[in-house]
């Protein structure tokens, strides 16, 4: 039994102990909070006062073609400066004269740097005359590794250099417009450089350390985070074929007196763009050598009215929705007709009134006949087919790519109700036309075009581009009949002799588009001409489209025939496509 007297001191002890313990608990909680819970925050705070660091630059990634050929890479170059004051100190040291006196050293420096030795000496002397204490004189910039090695071997204490990253495009203007370029600060301005900026960009590393009050590095505080170089972007482009096409279209465009030209090659089975060539070209190694208007990719950014190449799409719409076959029914068409609603449609050449089959209308590329065929289905159906074939949808997401313009049917007037049957009143880019023909060549299955194969990061992990969307946009039978008609266009059309590729069965369709003059009208007498086709017909492998901007020697689409023939021949050869073994079906009748 406890008495009051004995209870009281014990309670006091207990209370005191409890107080001490609770205070201890508070301290422990605070300690844990400082040391563990918000440790990072405090460390970061302290680093503001103690931490210092240097950035370690990473290198921008390469761009390679489908075979791994390097199209763009980053190299280190060296910018040299000299210290005239230090040079003078070394020269004037009589006890220990320099091994290489300035008179000789300057000659060697000038020789390595490609400067004039006398000018160099005069320049340095002038700088010294102006300010005897000057420690800075700019020598040559962008020295390569070879020059840097030689300069280093001179062992001159007054030469200093700074490393810098420079972008080099080993193939020059081959795919230059496609690759794009970087500005002076290293920011991508166009093309794949811009499109794949995220993959190519390096993340810089850092060398950090802490300094005490007196500026001494605290031992053990050095930490290095390595830089991560940018990833390698692989394109679907074949650089050798791209070179041939660039060279060929440059020759053809100049021979035809055109202002420009493009060639696009698409793999039918995969939708991969193998060539995206154009002229005038741009060499990203030397931007100033070409006009700023050529620095972008006109191929992806210039929309035009395709003209007759889209008659194939009208044909697909009416074959699937109005029961039209290549040979029946027929329509009567003369070379110029006025329709009930007041629209007037002309053909490109004068001909008597014919009973055109659909095949004949395509072979002769009769606008009047197509207007009559096309209006067998409602404008909404045709609008749907244009959309299905890719009009109004950008292809690969190229920087500043044009998606073309497709007006809703409510905006079609009396004239455009008919002109939309033969490729007018809407615009597309050349890759979009290639995409539309890819679907026809691939049995009606449209595969979205792609330009980027993959991105391989610095660790070697390959990130494949997202699989392209595939969609059956027309029935395989429709695609087969269209292919047969397009082969008949190649064989019976006006360019038949000029586009023959010996040994191969090819399809082709020409397109002649009027060019807006900027004042609401069209330029007279000049056109944006194109020719598209695929081969071999018995097992289509590649779609080729060639365009010429305002050819003047031959103004019609016949101007593109020679370029198309060369392009198709080279594609068949490059990819070892076997010549056709199955003979062509009987020719389709043009008239009835």
């Amino acid at each position, binding site marked *: 039994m406890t008495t009051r007297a004995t209870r009281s001191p014990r309670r006091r002890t207990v209370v005191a102990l409890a107080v001490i313990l609770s205070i201890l608990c508070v301290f422990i909680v605070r300690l844990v909070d400082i040391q563990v819970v918000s440790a990072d925050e405090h460390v970061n705070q302290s680093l503001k006062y103690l931490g210092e660091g240097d950035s370690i630059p990473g290198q921008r990634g390469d761009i390679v073609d489908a075979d791994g*050929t390097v199209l763009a*890479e980053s*190299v*280190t170059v060296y910018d040299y400066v000299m210290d005239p004051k230090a040079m003078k100190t070394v020269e004037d040291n009589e006890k220990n004269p320099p091994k290489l006196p300035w008179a000789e050293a300057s000659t060697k420096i000038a020789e390595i740097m490609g400067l004039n030795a006398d000018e160099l000496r005069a320049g340095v002397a002038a700088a010294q005359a102006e300010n005897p204490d000057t420690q800075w004189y700019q020598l040559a910039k962008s020295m*390569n*590794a*070879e020059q*840097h*090695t030689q300069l280093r071997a001179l062992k001159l204490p007054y030469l200093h250099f700074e490393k810098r990253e420079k972008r*080099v*495009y*080993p*193939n*020059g*203007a*081959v795919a230059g417009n496609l690759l794009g370029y970087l500005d002076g600060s290293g920011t991508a301005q166009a093309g794949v450089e811009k499109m794949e900026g995220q993959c190519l960009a390096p993340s810089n590393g850092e060398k950090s350390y802490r300094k005490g009050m007196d500026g001494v590095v605290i031992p053990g505080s050095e930490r290095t985070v390595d830089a991560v170089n940018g990833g390698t972007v692989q394109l679907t482009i074949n*650089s*050798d074929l791209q*070179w*041939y096409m*660039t*060279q*060929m*279209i*440059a*020759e*053809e465009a*100049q021979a035809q007196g055109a202002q420009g030209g493009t060639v696009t090659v698409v793999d039918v089975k995969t939708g991969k763009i193998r060539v995206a060539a154009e*002229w005038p*070209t741009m*060499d990203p*190694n*030397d931007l100033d*050598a070409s006009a700023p208007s050529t620095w972008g990719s006109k191929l992806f950014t210039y929309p035009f009215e395709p003209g007759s190449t889209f008659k194939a799409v009208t044909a697909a719409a009416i074959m699937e929705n109005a029961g039209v076959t290549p040979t029946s029914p027929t329509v009567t068409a003369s070379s110029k007709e006025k329709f009930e609603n007041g629209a007037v449609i002309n053909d490109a050449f004068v001909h008597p009134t014919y009973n055109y089959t659909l095949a004949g209308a395509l072979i002769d590329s009769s606008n009047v006949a197509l207007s009559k065929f096309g209006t067998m289905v409602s404008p909404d159906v045709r609008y749907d087919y244009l959309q299905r074939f890719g009009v109004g949808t950008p292809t690969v997401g190229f920087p500043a790519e044009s998606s073309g313009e497709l007006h809703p049917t409510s905006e079609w007037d009396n004239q455009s109700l008919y002109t939309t049957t033969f490729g007018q009143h809407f615009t597309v880019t050349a890759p979009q036309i290639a995409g539309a023909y890819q679907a026809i060549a691939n049995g009606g299955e449209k595969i979205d075009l792609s330009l980027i194969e993959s991105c391989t990061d610095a660790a070697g992990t390959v990130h494949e581009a997202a699989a392209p969307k595939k969609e059956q946009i027309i029935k395989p039978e429709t695609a087969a009949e269209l292919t047969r008609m397009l082969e008949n266009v190649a064989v019976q059309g006006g360019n038949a002799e000029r586009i023959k*590729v*010996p*040994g*191969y069965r090819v399809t082709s369709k020409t397109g002649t588009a009027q060019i807006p003059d900027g004042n609401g009208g069209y330029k007279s007498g000049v056109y944006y001409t194109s020719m598209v086709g695929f081969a071999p017909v018995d097992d289509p492998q590649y779609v080729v489209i060639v365009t010429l901007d305002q050819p003047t020697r031959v103004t019609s689409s016949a101007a593109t025939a020679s370029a198309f023939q*060369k392009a198709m*021949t*080279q594609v*068949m*050869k490059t990819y*070892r496509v*076997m*010549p056709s*073994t199955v003979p062509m079906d009987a020719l389709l009748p043009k008239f009835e």
Partner: protein
Amino acid sequence: MSLNAVVRTPKVAPEAPSRAPRARLEPVTAPRARRKPKLAYALVALGGAMAIGAAQIGLSLAITQDSFTLASLSSQQGDLNLRTQALQEELTGVSSPQALATGASALGMVVAGAPSYLRLSDGAVIGAGTGAGWASTVDPNGAGAVSNSLLQAPTNDATDGPVTEDATTPTEQLPPAITDGLPSPTTH
């Protein structure tokens, strides 16, 4: 556990043997004789210390030597990296299709037209079956030449180099040796 727990008989501790009583303290008759210090111990201790010292000097010498080797190797690596870079830069541009095409055209080669294939199983010619024409479909030196500013700068040095000397020295052109017989298709 079993309910029928075994009943243990308590162990009885054996009785400790009784000791004969002895006086706690005894007078010391004479101081114990002091042992002579052994020399061997001193030598071992001294020798050990010297060995440790020698080992440490040797080790630090080795480390210093290694750091010199390391420094010289890393500078060598730096030089070699530079050399690699320089050699790669020499290749840049020369490996471009323009350079190849220009070189080929200088040798009189042309870009031909449509290809033909020879089927080995029956000797059939697939394709047009015509040879290459005299004219090339493109002219790499003509107006359409695809520019490459990398090619213009180094050509002066490159053409004076040993590459062209090798190319001009006449070497006897022999057909490749046939080691595995003529190529033939596998037929079933």
